[in-house]
């Protein structure tokens, strides 16, 4: 019943404890700011270094950055819209569909997976 | 037929003659009309008369059924093995030349005699067997009732 052991950070593996700062307030923020800084550096680098392209459009300044950002944003928004059309309840195809296998939370007494 | 004295005596006399005649027909088969088939039938007549006049049990004492069976096989094998012998000698099956390659004519004679002997034995045995088969079915009435 490892899933249900009392939550004691001392029982975590060393490596797991090393990452615990992620959960602390500000942890996520730190990650985000790192990302912003990296992005800024990359924009700078785009003008500093020579880059060779096969297509004319690649010559456009920070083309890849713009492409990456806007296409992904568009993709995510698109998915949100599409979800309205595509979403169906879990037992849509069959009452025994794979999506319906009980999750650990749903099974109070989960069998031991180490068996 | 114990009371038919004449029949019994005459039969005893005749059986020897019949057998002798059968042998005559048998061994003249290669020269004159006759041969194993006829001789076999005649020979079987000797046994059949004996069993008719004396009794099936007596006849079967002389010539037990199992022995007759073997005789059938022996006769047939005699025939077939003569042929096989000629094959071993390097001739065609049943080519009697093989029996005496130096003198084919005598080989032919001997070959035919062997063959006919085989036929004779088998026919005798078969005839007797057929008679036994019919005669050994339960008799409808016994001799005294005639």
């Amino acid at each position, binding site marked *: 019943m490892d899933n249900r052991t009392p939550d004691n950070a001392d029982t975590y593996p060393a490596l797991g404890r090393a990452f615990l700062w992620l959960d602390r307030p500000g942890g996520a923020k730190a990650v985000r700011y790192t990302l912003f800084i990296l*992005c800024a550096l990359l924009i700078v680098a785009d003008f500093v270094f020579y880059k060779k392209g096969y297509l004319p459009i690649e010559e456009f300044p920070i083309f890849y950055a713009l492409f990456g950002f806007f296409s992904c944003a568009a993709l995510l928004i698109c998915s949100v819209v599409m979800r309205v059309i595509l979403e169906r309840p879990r037992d849509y195809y069959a009452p025994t569909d794979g999506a319906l296998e009980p999750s650990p939370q749903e099974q109070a007494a989960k069998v031991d997976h180490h068996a | 037929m114990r009371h038919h004295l004449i029949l019994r005596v005459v039969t005893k006399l005749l059986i020897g003659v019949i057998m002798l005649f059968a042998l005559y027909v048998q061994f003249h088969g290669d020269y004159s009309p006759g041969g194993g088939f006829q001789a076999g039938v005649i020979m079987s007549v000797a046994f059949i008369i004996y069993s008719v006049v004396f009794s099936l049990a007596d006849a079967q004492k002389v010539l037990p059924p199992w022995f007759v069976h073997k005789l059938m096989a022996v006769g047939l094998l005699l025939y077939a093995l003569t042929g096989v012998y000629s094959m071993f000698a390097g001739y065609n099956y049943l080519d009697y030349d093989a029996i005496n390659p130096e003198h084919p004519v005598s080989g032919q004679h001997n070959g035919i005699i062997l063959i006919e002997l085989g036929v004779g034995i088998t026919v005798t045995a078969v005839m007797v067997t057929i008679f036994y088969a019919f005669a050994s079915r339960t008799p409808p009435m016994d001799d005294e009732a005639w």
Partner: protein
Amino acid sequence: MLDALPTAFLFFLAALILPILPRGPLRSLLVLIVPVVAGLAVYALPMGNLVQAEFFGFTLDLMRVDPLSRVFALLFCIAAFLGGLFAWHLRDTVQQVAMLLYVGAAIGAVFAGDLVTLFFYWEGTAISSVFLIWARRSEASYFSGMRYLTIQIGSGVMLLAGIILHYSATGSIAFDAMTLDSPASWLIFIAFGIKAAFILLNNWMIDAYPSATVTGTVILSAFTTKLAIYALARGFAGTELLIYIGAATAVYPLIWAQLENDLRRVVAYALNLQQGFMFVGIGIGTELALNGAIAHAFVGVLYGMLLFMTLGAVMYRTGTSRATDLGGIYKTMPLTALFCLVGAASISAFPLFAGFVSKSLIISAAAKGSHYVVWGCLLLASAGGFLVCGLKVPFFAFFSKDGSLRPREAPGHMLLVMGLTAVLCVLAGTNPTALYALLPYDVSYQPYSTGHIITQLQLLLFSALAFALLLPTRLYPRPNPTVNLDFDWVYRRLLLGAIGLLAIPVRGFFRALDRFKAGPLKALIRTLYNTYGPMARTSQFWPTGAMVLWIAILLGVTLLVSYAS
């Protein structure tokens, strides 16, 4: 000694021996050793058609060894070794035997020098692999396996039909490059396409992978689709149509992957998307592009397996791989999380990771050929792929919100094999020359130019930026425990409905048939029974006299006919 025996037979032999061995580590060891032996044998194989067999008048080439087939066979041996190590804990005879047969069939298919042999192994992979799905032993996996089998066998049947047409048209069964100019090659193309998961033919993959067992998914992901890539590279290299199919295949799964809740399905979508890259590479058909496609298949197996292994380990410990049920487990499974990140980085083509060196080959080739739209699609797929597989999978599996799950770290052998695979991914990424050396064609390509690294990082990090910015808002599609309609709706719902409609006239027909049965048919059967049944004259004992009478009649008639004519 081993070149006299087709490599596939090594696996078949092992599959025969395995059930004799006692249940336990000995069997696992066998599963592990065979790929090593096979791999060494393949490595040492000379080039040429090594083994031939006669079959119904055909000469079958069981072992066509050339650079192309060898690299795939080698890849399959490595994948079989990794999969075998991952399944070390397995005590399931069915899965172990199926695994060996499946790998053997895949390697056999790769070495098949003619279409007939290819067909046999093609069906062999289908039939053996379905047991990896059924081995889950749940009702859902049974139906999923049936769908998988139907589609795979369907591919085999089309292949067979194509082969027959091809043979009757050309008189040859050799498996060489083909052009799409006859029904035969079209049939073969579509058969390959089903296995390769072309757009709209891809749903079996999404459906089947997550339905298999923890270990089965890892194995499944490595062989079937890559075998199809091999077949396409061999048969249809340079087919222009493939470029467009590839571009579409690369873009199509993005939205569904975004919406999907089951992370193993997400990975399946992501792998499907990578297939698209390979199609493009094969379609372009230049040596650079082909090399790219093959290299991508090679590393694709590695990171595909790695991702499925990490999710498999999670599933092994928690029993689920759904985003809504997971989260926060990096605390207790940190190594697994780390390896997952390596896999995610590899599939997203981060510099220094495996995907980078192969994907750039293909994109460069597309750009060189000035396929503007295709190039754009591939770029979109790169960015979107990173979004789903590089960010979504590790994030929702290991980080995200902290659930109550505190699973133990994955078992030792799983950690070992995940680590090994992760190292391979990094090695391939940092040491591209070694990877390129394996490829069939000589390339002089340098993925690590400053410009290239910068543009790639721009693409990826700005995608991450979009993710980071939108995640807290409602514009991000958070996973929901729901089903999303995909193309499989067509055959799982629409077709069923159509059959329902079709059933109405059929039912009418049978009603009419019933009425017919009750009336005229019954009378007919009664008459037949009266004429021919056991009580009838024809089948009763005839008296001997009657028979003799018939003889006399027949003789009379015959005499009459022969005299009269």
